């Protein structure tokens, strides 16, 4: 039998099952006595085992089989879940995921799962209770000495390399006689901090600080300096026996990142004695409780290749252009029957447009569903207690946006957990509940979707941000003095900004928030932060519903036509010339009890045949970005229209003040204005 035909089905379904296993295991961790969840987990594992065996993936099947044995005991009440069993099961899941990923990439799904299988067997025969230590060590062993980095750190490293920095791996060993190892390690980090960014350290910084390391440690480091110089500098610190720096290329990084899922644990697993911290109790907010007992409600769906949807979308865009052309022609010809038919066509294509756009909508849950697990693992490695509350996971977004939004959200969540939330002691001292809370919310509002990451941590110290901004030359002391608290907090999105005092291998330490912002901006969205010292911070991301068809206001500048996205227009109006005031050389307009700056579109775009100075009255559009407002003067309004976004091609790339192009009903190309670029 030719298995290839079934391979893609197998991959899709096993990913669904793995996701279900992950979710339910997390749920079970929150409520270890709920045997109905165990039933669901058991069924998923069983199906997965059967599928893998049929497809001939023996390793996958045998690992699932061992996990199933453990679950069977739990299901029949012969075994009570404890922290160790959870850890081993999660590790098993990680291994399964990496095997399926290998199969997806064309491999055979082979992996050395001996240690995990051993741990699972020891659970089944009960011997693990007596030799917890060794079993845990065995599980942790694959982490080995190699400097495994996770996907997030990989992306940080790659970004740095793209911007011309070097990624180095530095092995440092201290002299045997060294007494204050932590202090020496601190000196090394201090030195490295001056020269670049530490992305990752092995063992972790916390362990280094507590002297929980033998004489040597390894750091992954991003810098503009060369390896030789750094070697000498680090070697120059007293009691450092040797320092060896080696430049990493993209290939090595990939290899370091690849074996990750099986090898990651180290920190979490090595301490099974830690009181069963239950970091990520699945959202107590009842909505996450899907029908736990029965099989997942079967909805009648089919899987469709995303490329076909894209093709459908493109064809529909063509249709839309012809529709506007027809509308224009029929109004010129003015024959009743023709006009009627064209109007009917317009209505139908309007409905069709809604359906086509809806087809591409995907619930944000497809991105959110991996976060509970990520938060759980992170919280463990940071030794913090945290609860993640997810709401609005069913909010839908365009597929293209969904694909891009994952990384920025991972970044914000890590940031919240690492920098935002205090340590457990810190929280108790501040009189807060021991367990921190992170809210992840998604909701619709108008033509936008909002995603918020909020935490009840220490909040942003805006004075520190200000001091840092002045120090880094982001703005002058005079400018800084004029900023509001919110404006100051938003400075953390400036490139190369970090206020983290201590090194940590979790967050990018300032390499990142500007990357988050540029990513969101490139999606046509916006990100901002609100924070209150001591109470917490809230990051809000605003995203457009769709990226392919938008409603726009068409405007004229002499002979040229431009489109302004309707979503950024607050209102339109006409103003007499003498009503435009000049304040300190800036032209302003009084608008609803406020005075807002006037922007001349013709001047910004250098329009060849229109000057608003020649006119007695000017049409204007009020646009808004956050709390900034502006009145944009145009020649004339043409009207509203649904337009199809088109790229202007690779040759022109990014052009200022223009976000793209569209084709109008008369076949002409009109440029789409990027309103955000009109604010100074």
């Amino acid at each position, binding site marked *: 039998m030719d298995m290839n035909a079934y391979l893609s089905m197998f991959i899709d379904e096993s990913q669904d099952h793995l996701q279900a296993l992950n979710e339910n295991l997390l749920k079970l961790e929150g409520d270890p006595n709920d045997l109905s969840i165990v039933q669901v987990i058991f069924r998923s594992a069983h199906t997965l085992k059967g599928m893998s065996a049929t497809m001939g993936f023996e390793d996958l099947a045998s690992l699932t089989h061992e996990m199933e044995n453990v679950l069977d005991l739990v299901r029949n009440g012969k075994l009570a879940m404890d922290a160790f069993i959870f850890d081993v099961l999660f590790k098993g899941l990680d291994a399964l995921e990496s095997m399926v990923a290998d199969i997806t990439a064309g491999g055979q799904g082979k992996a050395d799962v001996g240690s995990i299988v051993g741990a699972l067997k020891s659970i089944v025969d009960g011997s693990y209770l007596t030799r917890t230590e060794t079993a845990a060590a065995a599980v942790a062993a694959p982490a080995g000495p190699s400097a495994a980095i996770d996907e997030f750190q990989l992306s940080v490293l790659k970004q740095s390399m793209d911007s011309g920095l070097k990624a180095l791996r530095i092995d440092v060993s201290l002299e045997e006689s060294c007494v204050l190892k932590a202090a020496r390690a601190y000196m090394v980090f201090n030195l490295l901090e001056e020269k670049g960014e530490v992305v990752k350290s092995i063992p972790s910084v916390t362990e280094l600080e507590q002297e929980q390391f033998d004489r040597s440690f390894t750091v992954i480091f991003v810098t503009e300096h060369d390896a030789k110089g750094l070697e000498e500098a680090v070697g120059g610190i007293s009691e450092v026996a040797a320092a060896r720096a080696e430049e990493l290329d993209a290939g090595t990084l990939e290899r370091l990142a690849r074996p990750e899922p099986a090898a990651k644990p180290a920190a979490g697993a090595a301490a099974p004695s830690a009181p069963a911290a239950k970091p990520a109790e699945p959202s107590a907010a009842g909505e996450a409780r899907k029908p736990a007992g029965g099989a997942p409600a079967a909805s009648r769906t089919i899987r469709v290749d995303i490329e076909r949807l894209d093709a459908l979308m493109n064809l529909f865009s063509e249709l839309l252009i012809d529709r506007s052309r027809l509308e224009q022609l029929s109004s010129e010809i003015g024959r009743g029957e023709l006009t009627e038919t064209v109007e009917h066509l317009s209505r139908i294509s309007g409905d069709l447009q809604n359906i086509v756009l809806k087809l591409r909508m995907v619930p944000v849950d497809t991105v959110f569903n991996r976060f509970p697990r990520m938060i759980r693992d992170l919280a463990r490695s940071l030794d913090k207690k945290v609860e993640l509350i997810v709401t609005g996971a069913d909010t839908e977004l365009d597929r293209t946006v969904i694909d891009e939004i994952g990384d920025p959200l991972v970044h914000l969540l890590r940031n919240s957990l690492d920098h935002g939330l205090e340590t457990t002691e810190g929280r108790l001292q501040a009189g807060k509940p021991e367990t921190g809370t992170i809210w992840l919310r998604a909701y619709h509002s108008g033509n936008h979707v909002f995603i918020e990451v909020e935490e009840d941590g220490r909040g942003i110290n805006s004075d520190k941000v200000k001091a840092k901004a002045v120090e880094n030359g982001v703005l002058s002391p005079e400018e800084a003095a004029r900023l509001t608290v919110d404006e100051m907090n938003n400075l953390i999105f400036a490139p190369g900004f970090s206020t983290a005092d201590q090194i940590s291998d979790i967050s990018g330490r300032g390499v990142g928030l500007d990357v988050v912002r540029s990513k969101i901006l490139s999606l046509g969205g916006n990100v901002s932060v609100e924070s209150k010292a001591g109470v917490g911070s809230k990051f809000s991301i605003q995203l457009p519903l769709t990226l392919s068809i938008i409603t726009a206001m068409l405007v004229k500048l002499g002979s040229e036509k431009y489109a302004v996205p309707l979503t950024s227009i607050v209102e339109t109006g006409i103003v007499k010339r003498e009503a435009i005031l000049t304040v300190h050389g800036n032209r302003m307009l009084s608008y609803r009890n406020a005075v807002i700056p006037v922007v001349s579109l013709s001047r910004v775009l250098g329009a060849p045949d229109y000057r608003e100075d020649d006119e007695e009255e000017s049409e204007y559009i009020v646009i808004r970005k956050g709390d900034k407002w502006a009145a944009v003067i145009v020649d004339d309004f043409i009207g509203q229209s649904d337009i199809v976004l088109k*790229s*202007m*091609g*690779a*040759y*022109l790339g990014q052009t200022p*003040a223009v976000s793209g*192009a569209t084709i109008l009903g008369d*076949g*002409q190309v009109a440029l789409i204005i990027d309103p955000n670029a009109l604010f100074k």
Partner: protein
Amino acid sequence: MAEDIKVIVFSLGEEEYGIEVDKVKTVERLMPITRVPKTPAFVKGVVNLRGVVVPVIDLRGRFGLAETEQTEATRIIVVSSGEMEVGFIVDRANDVTDISSDQIELPPEVVGGIQAKYLRGVAKTDGGRLLVMLNLSEVLNKSELVQLEQMEA
């Protein structure tokens, strides 16, 4: 081993130029061009090429030659190189001809006022015509576009 290359022949002023046929997507008559603000002067704007938005540049301007009036004979030659698709405005598109790759000789320093780096060489056809072969990747070099923008800014 010499191999035959099919080239599209076009002219700028008196000079004749060639671009390999497989790099050319289409040759079009002049059509309405939408100006794109804040781009170098030789970037004339974008056109609607059967539903695709394609940037158009004036090849004379690109080479630093004086731009001329557009006439009935003016054509847009749409070339694609890598991910880029760009239309060239030329004075006239003439015909398609075969040249042999060993007929291409290295260009002299400057041909008809065009710097050598934009040229692949000069080819002699069997009919005795001289064709200047363009080096597309250099003509479409974007870093230069950025530099020009900065100079004009």
